[in-house]
Structures are given as structure tokens and as C-alpha cells.
């Protein structure tokens, strides 16, 4: 297949899948449409031991699609909300969350923007972000990369970044890990100086300049930036099976 035959959303799926490479037998918990596909692609291709939920209280061995017919679930275990905290706090999970705002060290906000007593915009609240970021591996999914999301300073810290983790105790410093940030434009990691956000790859069709100018702080760019890899034929079959209606392309249009 030529690169042209893949949609931007397909590259995003692969960017997500790659976040989980090497994770082994832990819970992969990607939240969002493209993340849900990406995590399942990882499990069906190169990370077969990943454990995944049905989005509610069950751990299921087969892939739950994001569109089209849903097959019978192969239930592996019961995992109600309360058990989820056992998984998170025991460190057996890699979550992929969203962010309304993120700074260069990965401090994330999706709680609210503005005065805590009277926010300009009330968003999700803290949800599980404070705990996730200190107790298990965290990656992020940003479907609309822009200077409004990637900001010099977040309004409120819900998920903690590397500079804040560095000020906490030894245990947190050792265990805090923000893996990748996958966006509609490319893939970032925290490989810059002092764990600053660094450009890891650009999706085909996106230039480095484009992604740098869509970032509201100085994004670290190390030499030549590769393109995000294309899905293999086998991965593309999985993507089509899990999303036959192409709802991923509504989350990230071409």
C-alpha cells in the first residue's frame, strides 16, 4: 500500500498502539475512540499479554469494536470501579487520558479553567488524573493539537508533570512516567532537557514547522524528525474490523 491510502486517523491509531509496546501483562486503558482502536491493535499484533476492559466492569480477552457489530465478549475477569483502584495503585496499568491543557513538562488539566471558585469553563473535574499520574504509567491523546491545548502554563494541574514529580519524594520520582503524547499531528515524548516535551515523529502530510507553530511553547526538536510509521497490512485489517464505519475519521478528519 502507498502512504496515500492511509488516513490521518490510521497513523494516529498506530501512534497510540506504539505507546503500549513493551508493556507486557498490564492493563492498557486507552480512553477515546482512536485510543480504543490503538490499544486493541497493539494487543492483537505485538503486545498479546495486554489486559483490556470492555469500557465498564469487565476485562475481556477479545477486542470490543468501536463501530459495527459487537461480538460476544470473552470475559476474563470482573473489574468493577473499586477494583480499578487496586489495579492503578498496584502499578499494573498504563492509561491514556485526554487533556484540555498541557505544559512542556506534561502537567495536564481537564478539570476547569479559571478561578477555582467561579471557573470560566467547568470541564471534567479531577477524575482519576492526580492518582493515575503518580501511581501508573500515563500517556495522552490530543485529537486537536493547538496552542490552546499546549500552553506555557495550565490553569489547574490535574495530572502532574515531570517538574512537579521531581519535587516529590523518591518513590514518586522513581515511578512517575509519562510515556507518549499522541496528537492529530504527530507523536511527542518527554525526551527533551529536564523531561521537556520533544517531537518524536510527525504524521505523513504534517511538517515539523506546522507542529511547532501549533504548540504554545518551545517544542524540543532533535535533528531530523521521522514520520510516524504506517500500519502494516495485518494492522490495517484489525483497524478495519474494529471500526468498519470509520468513526475514527470523525475524531481526526484527514
Amino acid at each position, binding site marked *: 500500500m502507498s502512504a496515500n491510502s492511509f488516513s490521518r486517523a490510521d497513523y494516529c491509531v498506530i501512534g497510540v498502539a506504539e505507546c503500549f509496546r513493551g508493556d507486557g501483562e498490564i492493563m492498557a486503558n486507552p480512553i477515546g475512540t482512536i485510543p480504543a482502536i490503538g490499544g486493541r491493535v497493539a494487543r492483537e499484533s505485538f503486545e498479546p499479554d495486554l489486559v483490556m476492559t470492555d469500557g465498564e466492569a469487565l476485562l475481556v480477552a477479545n477486542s470490543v469494536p468501536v463501530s459495527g457489530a459487537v461480538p460476544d465478549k470473552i470475559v476474563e475477569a470482573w473489574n468493577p470501579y473499586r477494583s480499578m483502584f487496586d489495579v492503578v495503585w498496584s502499578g499494573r496499568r498504563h492509561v491514556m487520558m485526554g487533556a484540555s491543557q498541557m505544559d512542556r513538562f506534561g502537567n495536564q488539566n481537564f478539570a476547569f479553567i479559571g478561578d477555582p471558585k467561579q471557573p470560566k469553563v467547568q470541564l471534567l473535574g479531577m477524575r482519576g488524573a492526580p*492518582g493515575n499520574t503518580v501511581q501508573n504509567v500515563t500517556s495522552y491523546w490530543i485529537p486537536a493539537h493547538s496552542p490552546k491545548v499546549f500552553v506555557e502554563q495550565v490553569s489547574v494541574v490535574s495530572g502532574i508533570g515531570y517538574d*512537579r514529580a521531581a519535587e516529590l519524594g523518591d518513590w514518586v520520582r522513581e515511578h512517575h512516567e509519562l510515556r507518549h503524547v499522541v496528537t492529530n499531528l504527530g507523536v511527542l515524548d518527554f525526551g527533551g532537557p529536564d523531561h521537556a516535551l520533544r517531537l518524536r515523529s510527525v504524521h505523513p502530510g504534517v511538517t515539523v514547522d506546522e507542529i511547532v507553530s501549533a504548540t504554545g511553547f518551545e517544542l524540543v526538536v532533535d535533528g531530523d524528525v521521522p514520520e510516524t510509521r504506517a500500519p502494516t497490512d495485518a494492522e490495517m485489517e484489525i483497524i478495519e474490523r474494529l471500526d468498519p464505519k470509520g468513526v475514527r475519521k470523525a475524531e481526526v478528519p484527514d
Partner: protein
Amino acid sequence: MTEDDVVAELESGMTIGIGGWGSRRKPMSLVRAIARSELQDLTVVSYAGPDLGLLCATGKVKKAVYAFCSLDSIALEPHFRNARQAGAVETLELDEGLFLLGLQAAAWRVPFLPSRVGLGSFVVDRQPEIKTVVSPYDDGEELVAAPALNLDAALIHMHRGDARGNGMYLNVDPYMDDLVALAAPKTFMSVEQVVPTEELASLGPVQAMKISRLMTHGVVEAPKGAHFTECVPDYGRDEAFQKEYAASAKDPELWAAWKAKYLDCGGHDEYRKVAGL
């Protein structure tokens, strides 16, 4: 008991815990009864959905103790959002897990439980109510002291129960309802159906009999009592109704109309008639 009997047990200024999760298995007939009552200045402690939203919209809430307020299929509870953006409610912002520890601490009658959850975030750094503690062991680690969420009263909704206050859930997740119940000296449970005690164990696995009469102080039989939230397997979320509820947050006239139709109509029986349940 009836919903109004429960309201008579509550007082203005109380801290009230509400079971369920988001827009799932919420004791909505009890919540509506509070919304119609004279109660005010409540502190609401909830894995929140339309329970908190409706009580904000009717001006009952002084303070929300929450980690999220969502309608699930609609990510943000619009009535709660309105109240926050108007500066009308105080909040204690908690992580979902600190919330669990707070309920557990209250249930076990200890002042806090230690955790790392919240370190470095707004939860700890910008809320003086949340304090830290230093481990007395060799590690000397600074930890979050997740404060006990002590309740004055709690409201939960179960699928089945008996008249003495034993309760059973039939869906896949018990949520934190047993902890919500234990965190309060008075817990009121609405159920879809009251059955004789001798029948209760035959309705599902014994593991589903999560609520015992040790935890409850009154039972209200409220068929469709969780409507419009999800209460599977008895009924799913009424998405159309929820949309109408959410849309009523768009302007005061729409809200007045919704309130007149579904709240001011009367108690749960009248509501069921109006809502066609």
C-alpha cells in the same frame, strides 16, 4: 417509607452522600424529593451525575464534594456546569480514588487514610482542606492524608431489597454504594422492588447482596426510582429524557418549563405518569 418521609429525616446544612456513579443507578426519586423540599445549604458528596446537577439547578447545594459530574453519554453535566460558572457552589475537588479512601475512612471511623494520590496536583497544592502526613516508618515518605468523608445521611438505590433494609444489586458494578451507606449514621435505600426476605437470595448470586440492614435505616419502594439514569437489567438509561433534561440547562425559560413539568408535578407517582413510565 416514602420519599417525603426520607426528606423529613433530613435537615438544611447536612452533608449528604449519594450512591451510584455518573448517570447510573442514582436514587433519583429521593433526589427529586429533596429538590422539591425546603431543604437548603446541603453539602453533596457524590460520584456525581444528575443528582448533583438537579440539586444545583434547584439551589439546594452549598458545596459539592466531587471528582466529576457527568451524564456519561453527555460528558459534562450542564446544570452543574452552570452553577460552577456562576460561582454558585463551593467545591472540594477530589480524585476518584481519594474519594473512595475518604468514604472508606468514614466507614472505618478513622480521620484519614494515607495515599500518594493528589501529590503535586491542585487537589493537595491548592486546597488547604487536604493535608499531608509523614510516614512514621523508616521511609519517612510524605503522603496525602485522604480526609474521611463523614456524612450526615446517605441515599442509595438498589434493584431489590426487603422491608428491613437488606439490598441487592443486579447490574455488573456495585459502585461504592456500600461505603456510601457505611459512611453515614443514617442511610436511606430506594429499591426497584421490595420482596420478602426469604425470596431475596434466590434473585441473584449471594455476592450481589452487598447491602445489609446493618447499613440502612429506611427503605423506599420506588419502581423506576433511578429514572432517567441507567438501572440495568431492569431498564437502561432514558437517553431521550436525559437529552431533554440537559437541554433545559441552556436557558432559564427551558429550565422553568422542565421544572414545572417534572418536578412541580408532585411525588414519584405523578412523575412516573408525566414521564410515561
